């Protein structure tokens, strides 16, 4: 392994590769900040450029874009409550309230340090645990995945404050229903399209996230313009505040970061799980671990609530490289795009990648750490400038949010229908938000909907229609029991206790 690390360092520390990491991080941060343009778009745009380099350099560039875009997504989550990527949805739960309290600079600094720490720790885990973790992820079967999805969706109960459990579950179901629109993945039978060709391919994720977050946020701000409480928020939003993290906040982060990085990395390793579920689970876990006083602060600007998902999503980014590099199975949508690029280079990922192309495997791992360091050096000093976006008056900011949302959808499909659909979903979401129906559960369910159906299909077909697969394997049973415990506990807390 020492030899591999040295090979990786030699490759990653060349001038060209360091430059690529810097360019990738900077470009990724800018793209990730724009609602609608996440890492997948950024990496997809990079693929033609990377073919001009050798495979290691190309992948290093894409990895830099990936980290940069995830950090950029956190920035728009914190400043605008408009997550550019699903992995940063959980960041907005506490990051945005913190920005509204005039602590935008601090929120961005916490996000930057947490991302750095999460990414660095997971790069170390990856270095030492990649071979054995790939074996663990291989042992996961469809029933385990299905149970894990149920657990992920139930974890949203952690986000629902008092009396919102049922509302959150209704939003989960709505998200799954939206995900079921379009062709069935196996039989190609169209569902819920009502003979509309525009719906045959289903509803795009970017469309749903833009409608329920960016656009609906913009409409809500306009709608509540004369509300005395929101007027107060607007005034405080113009204050950036200090980027200095005090001792008490650092102490909280020291506890949160290690546990969130572990959960983020482990979830990232599981093929298909990725940064989104990792950040949601880390947020839910953190909320359940902290004391009652701290728990009350969740959703209102908690340091733990911001640090946990930020650490986990970056740790999951590194973790998602494990199945891609060692098994050839992408751990997330973004690594799926990178896998395509790798195949384009003529490199076949799999267990033999260690032997056939060690410089690729190890240089990516080494460049991850370098990427995190560069991201921190680039972004921390830029925080005051990035946060200036808050000073933009609402009269300009709202139309610009709408503009970025509509442009994001337009360049994806060049279709009027998608714009109408986005406006329609945004109007419904705005109305639901007025009555405290939470949107994050809907998004998580929408992301997991397809995978969930796929794994249920495999499980039921393998067990010949019997639901015994839920308790046949110990691992599946353990995950399901955890889910049941969470449901019972939250149901008890939110309804019965009252």
């Amino acid at each position, binding site marked *: 392994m020492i030899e591999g690390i040295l090979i990786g360092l030699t490759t990653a520390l060349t001038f060209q590769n360091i430059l690529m990491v810097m360019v990738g991080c900077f470009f990724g941060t800018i793209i990730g900040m724009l609602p609608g343009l996440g890492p997948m778009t950024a990496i997809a745009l990079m693929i033609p450029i990377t073919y001009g380099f050798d495979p290691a350099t190309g992948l290093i560039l894409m990895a830099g874009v990936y980290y940069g875009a995830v950090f950029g997504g956190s920035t728009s989550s914190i400043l605008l409550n408009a997550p550019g990527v699903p992995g940063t949805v959980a960041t907005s739960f506490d990051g945005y309230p913190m920005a509204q309290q005039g602590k935008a600079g601090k929120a961005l600094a916490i996000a930057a340090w947490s991302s750095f720490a999460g990414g660095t720790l997971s790069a170390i885990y990856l270095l030492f645990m990649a071979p054995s973790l790939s074996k663990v992820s291989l042992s996961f079967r469809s029933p385990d995945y299905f149970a894990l999805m149920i657990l992920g969706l139930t974890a949203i109960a952690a986000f629902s404050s008092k009396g919102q459990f049922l509302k959150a579950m209704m939003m989960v179901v709505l998200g799954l229903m939206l995900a*079921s629109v379009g062709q*069935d993945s196996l039989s190609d039978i169209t*569902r819920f399209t009502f003979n509309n060709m525009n719906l045959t391919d289903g509803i795009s994720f970017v469309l749903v996230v833009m409608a329920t977050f960016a656009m609906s946020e913009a409409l809500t701000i*306009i709608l509540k313009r004369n509300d005395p409480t929101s007027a107060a928020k607007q005034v405080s939003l113009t204050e950036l505040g200090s980027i200095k993290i005090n001792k008490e906040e650092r102490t909280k982060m020291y506890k949160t970061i290690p546990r969130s990085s572990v959960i983020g990395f482990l979830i990232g390793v599981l093929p298909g799980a990725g940064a989104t579920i990792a950040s949601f689970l880390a947020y839910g876990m953190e909320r359940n671990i902290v004391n009652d006083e701290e728990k009350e602060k969740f959703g209102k600007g908690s340091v733990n609530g911001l640090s946990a998902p930020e650490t986990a999503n970056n740790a999951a980014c590194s973790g998602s490289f494990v199945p891609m590099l060692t098994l050839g199975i992408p751990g997330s949508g973004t690594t799926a795009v990178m896998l395509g690029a790798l195949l384009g280079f003529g490199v076949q990922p799999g267990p033999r990648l260690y032997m056939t192309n060690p410089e690729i495997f190890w240089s990516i791992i080494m460049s991850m750490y370098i990427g995190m360091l560069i991201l921190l050096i680039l972004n921390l000093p830029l925080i005051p400038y990035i946060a200036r976006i808050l000073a933009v008056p609402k009269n300009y900011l709202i139309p*610009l949010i709408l503009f970025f949302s509509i442009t994001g959808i337009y360049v994806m499909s060049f279709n009027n229908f998608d714009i*109408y659909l986005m406006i329609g979903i945004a109007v419904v979401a705005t109305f639901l938000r007025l*009555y405290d129906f939470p949107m994050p559960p809907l998004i998580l369910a929408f992301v997991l909907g397809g995978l969930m159906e796929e794994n249920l299909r495999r499980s039921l077909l393998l067990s010949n229609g019997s639901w015994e697969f839920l308790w046949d394997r110990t691992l599946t049973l353990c995950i399901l029991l955890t889910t049941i415990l969470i449901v019972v506990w939250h149901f008890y807390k939110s309804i019965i206790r009252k």
Partner: protein
Amino acid sequence: MNINTTKVISLLFFIFSAFYLYTAYQIQVFAFDENAPFNARTFPIYLGYTGLFFSGLKIILPDPNTIKVQHKTLEYKKTAILIVIAIIYGATILKVGYFLTTSLFLFSSYYFLGERRWVLMFLLSFPFVAAFMYLLHGVLDIYLRDPFLQSIGVMG
């Protein structure tokens, strides 16, 4: 009588779930798939029942945290105008082109939101869109259809 809007929304969701479930049962599957343990309609049927279950619970169970929205303070008019402008923008973007429609969308949105600094409004619409369009079309090579710019010979 004071109607709890959350309950009304839950009732609407219940009706929506019932409609979803009905539509799920109408999904045409292949004859050989009809009695398979899992086919294209299985998952939606489960979803329909789950929707009925949760919305039904929300209707039946008491609501301890009733949300009261102050409708009088809400800016319905400006929000509706903004939505209408966005719909018009969506309807014209393909026929007229990206540059003109986007610039007009931004300019009119600033105006209806109460902005009257004309120079700033202009700078943050037409030149801003031109720069953004150059970034997308010129630098990132993302094709943007624009009949208007083509008609005046700016775009090839």
